[in-house]
C-alpha cells in the first residue's frame, strides 16, 4: 500500500505540473509574449497551491473520500483545460484571460489540497521525518519527469489537448486506485464509484472526440459559418457565409468578400483593359475564383482568355458550385476560356503566345515561394508576352499598410524596362489596396467605361491615380530572386500592422 500511495504522489505531482505547463504554453501560443504568460501562470498557480494547502485544514472528516473527490475534480478541470481554452479562444475572444486564470486558480487550489491530504493519509504508516522526506521526494521527481517529457515527447507527439486529457485520466485513475485500496474503510462507496466512473467516461470520450472538437474550434476562428472546406495539395480552401456575404479564405487569408469584391475586381480589370481598345487575347495569372475573368468577359472584343491557376481544385470548385457560379457569372464555363492548372512561373517561361492584356492576381508575397512571383525575373518573362500596345495589371498589396512592399513591386517592374502606372482603390474588406499597370507604351487612363459598372467610372478615375503623401513613392530595393527583398519588406510591414 505504501508504494502504491507514493506512486500516486508521483503521478499527482506530474499531473499538477502538466496543467500548469499547458496553461503557460497555450497562453503563450495564443496571446504571445511567453515571458509574461509563463510567469503570471506560474505565479497564480503557486499562489493557488498555497491557498489549497491552507484550506486543507478545514477537511476534517473522510480524508480519503475527499482526496478521491479532489483527484477526480483535478482530473476533470485539468484534463479539459486545454480543450476548454482553445474553445473559449475561438468563440469568445474577450474572457479568455478570465477563464485562463480562473482555471489555473482552481487547479492550483485542488493540487494544493492534494499533498497535505496524502500526508495525512500516510501518517499512520510513517514516522513524520520519513513521511515528509518520502512524499516530497516523489513530488519533486514527478515534476522533473514531466517537465522533461512535456516539451520532448508530449507536445510533439500528443499535442496540448490530448496531453491534458491523458493526464486528466491519470488523475482519475489514481482516484480509482485509491478507491480500491481503501474500499474497506470507506463509506458511500457506490456514490464515489459512480463519480469516478463518470469522470473517466467523460475524459475518455473527450479523448476520442477531441480532434473533432478542436477542428470545430479552428473553424470558429472564422467569424461566419463555414460552408466549404478542403485541403488541396497546395492550400487550405475555406468558404464562409453570413447572410448574403460569401467569403473565400486561402490558408486562412481572406481573398474576397462577396459584398465588396466587385470593387476589387473592377479596379483590377477596367482601368487597364478599357485602355486597350479591341483587346482580343487576355491572360489571367492566379485568380482561380473566376472573378477577374468575369470582368474581362464583359468586353465583346475579347476572343480568348487563358486562366492559369496552380490549384485544379480551386478552378473546379468555382466552375461547379452553384453559389460560386452565380458569383462569377459562369465565367469559368465560358467557351472563350481556357483553364491551365500549372505553376505560373514555369508556364510563363514555356508560353509562346502574345496577349493584349494580362491580369496578375497572386496571393500577397508572404513567403519566399510566393516572392518569386513578384521578382524582376518574373516580370521580364511577363514583358515578353505582351503585344506592342498590350499592358498588364498587377495586384500589389496595400500601399497604405505595406507602403515599402507596394513601391518595391512598382520599382521591380520598372527595373525590367516596363513603364509603370501605380493606382489604388478602397476595398472595405481589405482596406486601401494597390495595383500597378505595366506597359510598353505610356499608359493613358480611359475616359469612358462600359455601362453597368458599380465602382469604376470616369469621374472616379483621376482619384485612383492620385497618391496622398502617406502612401506616396518611396525608394526601395528591386526584388530579385537572389535577394527576395519584397518578402522582407512585407514581413516587417504586416507584422507592424498586426494588433
Amino acid at each position, binding site marked *: 500500500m505504501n508504494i502504491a500511495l507514493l506512486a500516486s504522489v508521483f503521478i499527482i505531482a506530474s499531473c499538477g505540473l502538466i496543467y500548469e505547463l499547458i496553461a503557460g504554453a497555450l497562453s503563450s501560443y495564443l496571446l504571445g509574449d511567453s515571458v509574461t504568460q509563463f510567469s503570471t501562470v506560474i505565479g497564480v498557480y503557486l499562489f493557488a497551491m498555497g491557498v489549497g494547502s491552507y484550506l486543507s485544514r478545514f477537511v476534517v472528516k473522510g480524508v480519503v473520500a475527499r482526496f478521491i473527490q479532489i483527484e477526480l475534480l483535478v482530473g476533470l478541470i485539468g484534463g479539459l483545460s486545454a480543450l476548454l481554452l482553445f474553445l473559449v479562444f475561438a468563440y469568445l475572444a474577450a474572457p479568455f484571460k478570465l477563464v485562463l486564470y480562473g482555471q489555473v486558480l482552481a487547479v492550483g487550489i485542488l493540487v494544493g489540497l492534494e499533498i497535505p491530504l496524502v500526508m495525512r493519509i500516510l501518517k499512520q504508516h510513517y514516522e513524520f521525518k520519513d513521511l515528509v522526506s518520502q512524499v516530497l521526494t516523489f513530488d519533486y521527481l514527478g515534476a522533473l519527469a514531466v517537465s522533461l517529457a512535456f516539451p520532448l515527447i508530449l507536445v*510533439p507527439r500528443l499535442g496540448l489537448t490530448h496531453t491534458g486529457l491523458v493526464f486528466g485520466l491519470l488523475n482519475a485513475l489514481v482516484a480509482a486506485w485509491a478507491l480500491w485500496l481503501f474500499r474497506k474503510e470507506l463509506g458511500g462507496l457506490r456514490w464515489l464509484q459512480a463519480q469516478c466512473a463518470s469522470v473517466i467516461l467523460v475524459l475518455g470520450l473527450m479523448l476520442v472526440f477531441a480532434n473533432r472538437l478542436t477542428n470545430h474550434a479552428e473553424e470558429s476562428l472564422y467569424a461566419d459559418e463555414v460552408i466549404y472546406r478542403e485541403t488541396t495539395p497546395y492550400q487550405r480552401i475555406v468558404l464562409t457565409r453570413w447572410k448574403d456575404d460569401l467569403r473565400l479564405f486561402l490558408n486562412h487569408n481572406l481573398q474576397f468578400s462577396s459584398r465588396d469584391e466587385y470593387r476589387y475586381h473592377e479596379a483590377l480589370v477596367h482601368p487597364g483593359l478599357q485602355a486597350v481598345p479591341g483587346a482580343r487575347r487576355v491572360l489571367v495569372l492566379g485568380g482561380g475564383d473566376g472573378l477577374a475573368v468575369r470582368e474581362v468577359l464583359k468586353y465583346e472584343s475579347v476572343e480568348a482568355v487563358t486562366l492559369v491557376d496552380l490549384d485544379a481544385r480551386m478552378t473546379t470548385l468555382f466552375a461547379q458550385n452553384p453559389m460560386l457560379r452565380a458569383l462569377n457569372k459562369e465565367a469559368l464555363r465560358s467557351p472563350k476560356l481556357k483553364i491551365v492548372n500549372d505553376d505560373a*512561373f514555369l508556364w510563363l517561361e514555356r508560353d509562346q503566345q502574345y496577349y493584349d492584356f494580362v491580369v496578375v492576381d497572386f496571393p500577397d508575397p508572404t513567403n519566399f515561394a510566393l516572392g518569386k512571383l513578384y521578382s524582376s525575373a518574373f516580370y521580364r518573362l511577363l514583358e515578353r508576352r505582351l503585344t506592342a500596345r498590350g499592358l498588364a495589371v498587377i495586384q500589389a498589396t496595400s500601399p497604405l499598410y505595406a507602403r515599402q512592399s507596394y513601391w518595391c513591386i512598382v520599382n521591380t517592374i520598372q527595373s525590367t524596362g516596363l513603364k509603370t502606372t501605380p493606382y489604388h482603390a478602397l476595398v472595405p474588406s481589405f482596406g486601401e489596396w494597390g495595383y500597378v499597370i505595366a506597359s510598353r507604351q505610356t499608359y493613358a487612363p480611359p475616359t469612358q467605361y462600359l455601362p453597368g459598372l458599380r465602382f469604376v467610372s470616369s469621374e472616379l478615375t483621376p482619384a485612383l491615380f492620385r497618391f496622398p503623401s502617406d502612401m506616396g513613392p518611396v525608394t526601395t530595393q528591386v526584388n530579385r530572386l*537572389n535577394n527576395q527583398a519584397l518578402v522582407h519588406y512585407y514581413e516587417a510591414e504586416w507584422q507592424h500592422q498586426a494588433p
Partner: protein
Amino acid sequence: MLGPMFERGHRLRGRDFPAPSETRNIDVAIIGGGVGGISAAWKLARSGFHDFRLFELEDEVGGNARAGQNAVSAYPWGAHYLPLPGQAARAVREMLVDAQVLLDASDATVPRYDERYLCFAPQERLYRNGVWQEGLLPRTGISKRDQTQYQGFFQYIAELKQARGRDGRRAFDIPMALSSRDADFLALDRLSMKAFLLRQGWDSEPLHWYVNYACRDDYGSDYAEVSAWAGLHYFASRDGRAQDAESDQVLTWPEGNAWLVRKMREGFIQQIETGALVFRVEQGRGHVDIDVLQVAQNRSVRWRAKQAIFAAPAFVLAHVLANPAAEIQAAARAIQYAPWLVANLSLRALPEERSGAPLAWDNVLYDSSALGYVVATHQNLRTYTGPTVLTYYWALSNEAPKAARERLWNTPWSGWAEQILRDLERPHPDIRRQVERLDIFRWAHAMARPQPGFLTSAVRQQLGQLSARLHFAHADASGFSLLEEANYCGVAAAEQVLRALKLRFASSI
C-alpha cells in the same frame, strides 16, 4: 551505395594489363576528365585545336563535379557551387561567358550574371540551440566578447583582402598561383588555422566553429590541420563582384558544378573516351606513350602523343609513370587526401521544420560532425515545392584520413543511413517518413588537404614541372580542390601544350 569505380583504379596496383594491341598517334593526350582535364580540353578546343583525346577512367567525366538525376531533380554528387569569380580568375570568367552565365565581357569589373544561376535567397541558414537562424555565422545568443572577436576577425580579413605584398601582388588571390610570394604572408603557411586564431588572441567558441566549418567544408579537414595560409585564403582571396548581387553570393545549379562541366565539354564530346584506364605513361624521345585499357573490352591501346596533360590526382602519378624520378614519387606520396561521403536523400515532400529562418539553399547544423545539406530544387522557379532532393555532405575530418577511409569502406549503407537520418532528425523530426530513397557516394580520395607547410613544400614545385612534354593539370598542384584552381591548372597546362606545338592562341591566364 555509389562511388568511384575503385576496383578499376585499384587495378593499377596489380599491373596485370593486356599488352597494347595497337599503337595510334595523336597530337595531345589528356589523362583524367575532372575539371582540370576538362578545362584543358576546353582551352585547346577554344583555341581551334582539336587533335586531342581525353581519357577518363569512370563512365562519365566531371570528377568531383558529377551529378545524379531522378524524376524530381538533378542533384550533385560533389562540388555544387562557384563563388563569383574575381578579376584574376580570367579563364573561369571566359568559361562562364561561353556558358552564358556571365552576360557581359569576361573582364567587366562588375559584370551581370543570369539571375537564374545566382543562388536564390535565402542562401544559408544555421541550426543552433533548436532554432534556425539566417546565415552561417552564429548570431543569436552570442556574447559581447564573441561579437568583439567577430569584428576583429572580419576587420582583419577585410584588410587582408586589400593587402598586397612587396611583389605588388594581392596577398591572397584566386587562382592561388597569382598570390603574393612575400615572405610575410608565406610565413602563415607554417602554422595551423587554429593556432593562427589563438595567436591573434581569438578564442571565441562560435568564431572557432565558424572558421573550422569553413575549413571542413572547403578542405575536408579540421582547422587544426589546415595551413593558416590556406584557411585565410578561403576568406581573403575572393573579390568577385556582380551587378545586382552581393559579393558573397554564389552561382549554383540543381546538379551543381556538373552543369558547368556539361557546358564546357559541348565543344569536344567526340574527343572524350570514358571507361579508359591509363595504366602506363612513358616519355620517349619526342613523344609520350600512353597505354590505355578499354575497360569494357579488356583491350589495351598505346597512344603516342606529342604532348600529354596529366589531369588525374597526384597519387595516381606514381602508379602509372614509367621509371618515375624519386622526387616525383615522393611528391605524389606526400599529399594526404580527405575522404568524403555525400548522400542524396529523395523526399516525398519538404520535411517538417523547427522554428526560425525558413528553408535555405545551404542548411547547416551547428552540433554536427557533418556539413549539412543543400536543396537541389532551390533554384527551381516553381512556387510550390512538392518532392525534393537534399544533398548531404560529410567530410570525415575528425580522424586521420587513413582510418576514416577504412571506416568509409567498412561501414555498411545501413550504418551511414542511420547516422545521417539521426543527424537530420533533430531539425526535421519527420525526416524518416519523408525519405523515399537515400543514396550514398563514398569518395575515398576526395581532395588534397592543405596542411601546414603545403604551400612552401617541394612537392608542389615538382608537380608543376614534370617535363617538356608532360604537364600536370590537377588541382593537387594548387594544394586545394576548388573549381577555380582545377580550371587554372588545366588551362595553364593547355597553354604550355599550345606553346610547345607552336600554335597561336590568346592566353586565358
